[in-house]
């Protein structure tokens, strides 16, 4: 075989073909502004295609298996009732194969306006695409071109809306399917919301879940966004979060990557008003041939803002983890306090972690630091536990759990923290039992 350098956008044809076939039938196709936006998405996607590893931002994540998969749109019967995660109380929005399912959701009585984005499209001119522009990122372009539905959640000024569950389930229709939900979350001044998100899928289902989030946190508002990614082992998730936080507001994102064959979480947060804060934490639990990529971009655009990032990855088997974290401190962002830490624990000699931290600082009075460690379990710690009678497998479990729990401890919302801790313990118990 001769290696032919890739010069044209790859894997784009199938998606573009579908767009051309569906354009007249996609939700909101009668809204000129939306048709124009989708056309921009198609144009950008045609020009860029699915990113290849020749693109710097995608150096460590290879989308070829995805390009070759030939995804079609999901064929979900409207009454399909897949198994859902146990409800946690509070409001719940359920999406099956990317489509909102009112029959499985429970949003009545919630102190927020929440529902299907597809139903609200006529009101969303200027909202959709305001934060996630199709020209910037190819996967946002793909989403813009093909999104059918998503979550719309607006919390009125001064309201504490409690917990909202966002559930996404992928079913197995026997053929590879792709869905591209667009979620819009907006918190008014001083509002508060905790979104606990679970993404799951059938074990054998081959699918692409390509959600894009546009998140706006107004002055003094707080959004806790806890994401539990438990996609099926043959599933792909490529997600993009675009969040903007105004003065005194807080956006907390915690992502736990435990499922999927390949996942990329791209999180872009702009702190646009003085005193805004962002906590981005996460844990990646990888085994077998899994691949997980966390790519963050923190834009400090205003003075006196705080950002904290701690990402922990445990890698077993032949898995591969990627962390790319960029912090940009603009000239106006004096007194910025930024911190980023990325730690990986390799449990197998065949596992690999790639880490690329990046600081770009234009202000002169800032405190900004980052660190990265990659290592194995500490032999002294293992020995210490074993001298106390703890068998080796149990000692390893205890230390791995300790490593992960530290990342989860940063989650301020109690419900979210409990959910994540449970998931971490459960994952490791299963992996330990399997190995």
């Amino acid at each position: 075989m001769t290696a032919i350098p890739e010069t044209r956008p790859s894997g784009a044809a199938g998606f573009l073909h579908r767009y051309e076939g569906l354009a007249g039938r996609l939700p909101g196709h009668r809204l000129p502004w939306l048709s124009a936006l989708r056309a921009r998405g198609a144009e950008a996607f045609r020009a860029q295609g699915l990113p290849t590893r020749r693109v710097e931002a995608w150096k460590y994540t290879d989308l070829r298996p995805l390009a070759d998969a030939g995804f079609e749109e999901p064929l979900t019967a409207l009454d399909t009732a897949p198994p859902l995660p146990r409800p946690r109380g509070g409001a719940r929005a359920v999406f099956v194969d990317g489509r909102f399912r009112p029959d499985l959701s429970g949003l009545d009585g919630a102190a927020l306006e929440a529902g299907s984005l597809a139903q609200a499209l006529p009101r969303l001119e200027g909202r959709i695409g305001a934060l996630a522009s199709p020209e910037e990122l190819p996967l946002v372009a793909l989403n813009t071109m093909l999104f059918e539905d998503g979550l719309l959640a607006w919390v009125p000024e001064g309201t504490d809306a409690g917990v909202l569950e966002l559930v996404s389930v992928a079913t197995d229709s026997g053929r590879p399917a792709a869905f591209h939900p667009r979620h819009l979350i907006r918190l008014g001044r001083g509002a508060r919301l905790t979104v606990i998100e679970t993404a799951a899928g059938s074990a054998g289902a081959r699918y692409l879940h390509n959600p894009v989030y546009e998140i706006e946190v107004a002055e003094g508002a707080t959004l806790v966004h806890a994401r539990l990614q438990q996609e099926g082992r043959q599933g792909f998730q490529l997600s993009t979060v675009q969040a903007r936080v105004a003065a005194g507001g807080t956006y907390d994102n915690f992502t736990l990557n435990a499922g999927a064959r390949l996942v990329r979480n791209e999180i872009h947060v702009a702190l646009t008003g003085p005193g805004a804060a962002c906590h981005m934490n996460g844990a990646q639990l990888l085994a077998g041939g899994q691949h997980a990529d966390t790519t963050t971009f923190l834009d400090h655009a205003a003075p006196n803002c705080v950002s904290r990032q701690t990402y922990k990855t445990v890698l077993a088997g032949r898995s591969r983890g990627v962390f790319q974290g960029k912090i940009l401190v603009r000239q106006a962002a004096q007194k910025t306090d930024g911190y980023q830490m990325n730690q990986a624990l390799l449990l197998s000699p065949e596992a690999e972690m790639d880490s690329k931290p990046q600081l770009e600082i234009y202000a002169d009075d800032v405190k900004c630091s980052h660190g990265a460690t990659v290592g194995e379990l500490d032999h002294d710690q293992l020995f210490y536990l074993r001298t106390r009678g703890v068998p080796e497998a149990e000692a390893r479990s205890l230390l791995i759990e300790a490593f992960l729990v530290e990342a989860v401890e940063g989650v301020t919302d109690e419900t979210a923290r409990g959910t994540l801790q449970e998931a971490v313990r459960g994952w490791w118990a299963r992996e330990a039992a399997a190995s």
Partner: protein
Amino acid sequence: MTLKIEGLTAEVEGKPILRGVDLEVPAGEVHAIMGPNGSGKSTLAYVLAGREGYEVTGGSVTFDGQDVLALEPEERAALGMFLAFQYPVELPGVGNALFLRTALNALRRTRGEPELDAMQFLKLARERMRALHMPEDMLKRGVNVGFSGGEKKRNEVLQMALLQPRFAVLDETDSGLDIDALRIVADGVNALRGPGFSALVITHYQRLLNYIVPDRVHVLLGGRIARSGGPELAQELERAGYGSVQAAA
């Protein structure tokens, strides 16, 4: 229940450290091992506990007639052996209570005893901690994380008090302790003394042996027991130094 070491030789990174140690600690007795830096005291402690990288090249160690050297560290613990570390290891993210309960329950399983639940364990742990004058918040903290030198040593003795070993090695448990802490730690060890417990107390100084009075004192020099005697030997060494033993050996 006798610990018996015969002709034990061991090396670390290819360098011979123990050059034929012979030692017997009968049930119910506490023996002290003294010796200058580099004589092999800590190596002996680690070899007995089964630490990686401490390679036994000859000789034997038996406890209660069992071949200790063939066992994994956790199997030695199950047999009733315990090492109080000179430098206790920190375990960030592992709560002290969880650690102690996990260890205790692991041992209880091997003894065929029912495991303790969190409440039962807490009751027992609080009782033992009071005896060691340990503040209760030490249960909530990460194992040895942010503990002072004295707190770490007390935590070692607490583990010993909970796990109730039949044979313990105390590796320089006195180092870094002030006189009050030393007394508390010694009381903890003395409380375990009886016909079912024996110990090897490794120390640099005679001071600890005023509080834990040994049945026998051995001097380790150049990887061998150069001299053995009663408790009075410790005082003699304090006075005359190891030079006198070296000259005699």
